[in-house]
């Protein structure tokens, strides 16, 4: 009964300012979807190529946020920080891949799952050791702190920019995967690794590159998402769960599936928080259960790396 009252009340208030509210909700949904997408894409890149489920992915997202915060606090231009942070997190990914993943590559996936699970705790601990428990807020450039009028509604400039930043990252990724030799090799290696190896490509470097790229995506998501909400030691764990949900719903290893799932989850979560707050905590998991009940391998199955 309470849920119906919530829907009715919320419907009433929408009608009173329908257009601006819908614009708000659409934009909020796109922002949320975008952040989920970047993180999940990174996870899928790593899984799609190397069949490694990186449990430390959320922690790398948090590391990216904190590195971005520190760079901006040290006086680095915010846009420069957006370029530098993924490179640094990718570098951390390189260290992880060479030291932890590589020795376990030939073993069962369970080994890397457990190792990256331990990595998650290690990175979380390092975050607390270096930056402490207090939440951090990124100081944005002045022009990003205001509001902008969109179809009659006032919307935060930075949130709007987030949508464009994420779109730019996705376009960059598409170009990398489709138009560059490295990207084409990655895509081929995800489906026919033996053939790629026979053609003389060093698969070790391919796996390394994929892992670094996945980590860089997590780092990029961290620095972009940081100013939206807050940066705190728990952000990694929470994002890991969300990104796994996106990956599972979209289909393990499927980049297109991740795009569809991220958009679906972003919109469902945003609209549910608005209309039926009682279900805000569970709606995404209910949706996941329903989808998996009918499509056990996700929307696009254990899909192709494209």
């Amino acid at each position: 009964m309470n849920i119906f009252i919530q829907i009715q009340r919320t419907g009433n208030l929408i009608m009173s300012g329908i257009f601006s509210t819908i614009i708000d909700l659409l934009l909020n949904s796109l922002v949320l979807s975008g952040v989920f997408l970047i993180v999940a894409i990174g996870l899928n890149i790593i899984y799609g190529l190397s069949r490694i489920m990186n449990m430390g992915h959320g922690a790398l997202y948090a590391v990216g946020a904190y590195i971005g915060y520190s760079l901006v606090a040290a006086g680095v231009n915010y846009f420069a920080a957006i370029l530098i942070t993924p490179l640094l997190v990718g570098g951390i990914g390189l260290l992880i891949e060479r030291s932890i993943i590589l020795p376990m590559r030939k073993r069962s996936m369970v080994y890397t799952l457990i190792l990256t699970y331990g990595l998650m705790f290690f990175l979380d601990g390092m975050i607390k050791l270096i930056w402490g428990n207090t939440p951090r807020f990124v100081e944005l450039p002045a022009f990003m702190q205001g509001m902008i009028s969109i179809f009659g509604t006032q919307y935060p400039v930075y949130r709007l920019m987030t949508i464009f930043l994420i779109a730019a990252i996705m376009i960059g990724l598409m170009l990398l995967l489709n138009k560059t030799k490295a990207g084409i090799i990655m895509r081929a290696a995800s489906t026919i690794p033996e053939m790629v190896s026979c053609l003389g490509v060093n698969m070790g470097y391919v796996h390394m590159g994929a892992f670094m790229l996945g980590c860089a995506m997590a780092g990029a998501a961290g620095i972009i998402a940081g100013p939206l909400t807050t940066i705190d030691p728990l952000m990694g764990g929470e994002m890991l769960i969300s990104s796994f949900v996106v990956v599972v719903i979209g289909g393990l290893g499927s980049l297109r599936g991740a795009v569809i799932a991220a958009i679906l989850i972003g919109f469902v979560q945003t609209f549910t928080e608005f209309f039926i707050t009682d279900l805000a905590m569970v709606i995404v998991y209910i949706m996941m259960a329903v989808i998996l009940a009918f499509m056990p391998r996700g929307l696009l199955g254990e899909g192709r790396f494209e």
Partner: protein
Amino acid sequence: MKKIVTISLGLMMVFSLLASQQVFAKDPVKIGVLVPLTGIVAQGGLEMKMGIEMAAKEKGTILGRPIELYVEDTQVKPPVAVSKAEKLVYKDGCKALIGVFSSGVGLALAANIDKLNVPFLTTHVMTTEFYGIHPLVFRSGQLANDQTAVGNVKGILARPDLKEKTYYVLVHDYAWGHDAGQRFIDLAKENGIKIYNEDYDKAPISTKDWSSYISKIKASGVDGVYIAFITNVIPVFAKQMSDFGLQDKVKTISAAAPGPLELEAGGEACYGIFGASDWSWDVDTPESNDWEMRFWEAYKTIPSDAAAHSYVGAMNLFNGIEKAGSTDAEAIAKALKGISFDGPYGNVRISPKDNCMRNSAVLTETMAAPENPFGAKVTMKVLHTFTAEELGPPE
């Protein structure tokens, strides 16, 4: 041979003397401290620990015996807290438990106190269910939800700019949030304050992106919002309200006091948060100022209300054990009824009626801090001081 015997006898005498000194040394009074040191309220838990440790250091001894604190992390999870409490009592031999941040955890411990059979004094649980919940369970610390509601409603009624506003109520979706929200709504309605959503909206504790809720606040057209959030989430919400341009248009009243370090991080975006709290470092009395400087000297961090009321609660517990003359649970419980301590926010007395404290409190609003020894840029400015009788509940 004679030399060996002499030396051996001499050594035996020395060891005997040392051993007898050990026998006469006083066993410490062991107190179990249950605080969240990980998770969303880790900073609050750390501040509670600081307050309790400071009290133990200043008290020095109880019954002529040193105080030994055994600190365990509850992780804000009731089952973890209960198992840690069992470890503190059964394995470590603690004679009392103190601390606990979350109402859910506090209620779980209270439900197991018969099994533990030691007094448990919370310094932070705010649920009204704690009034008279068990003869061995006490509260001396953070204001309870009903007391906070009284303070906030009185504060709203005293300000013409707040009295006429319509309030949207948004709470964290767990025991304390529901209780705090409902208490405010009931009291507000009795006093003619307009509430937009009497069945209050609930947000998961893990919520980071408040944009949907803020969009709803925007769409509703209200000019006030009453929030019942975990302390370190308050500045996050305030910052996002500011991002959406609502900081000046919608007045925020909070059921809990924001943490000082989180306020510092939020900066100007956290100005204008209004709420009742037991204490703020802006309280200007000799006792409060002295306590603040002692805390600052010890920990070099801005004194927080979590530390202050944990300090006071700990002092009440230590003095209660002293008064009991023993570490027997029932004796301590009997001694704690009616005990009081004069601390940074005046007299804090544990009511014999319901084992919960009565004390004065302050109404505050966050704003730019004046010059201060802590380097703080944001303060919770004291607007009004309530007496214990005003806040109740009546005895």
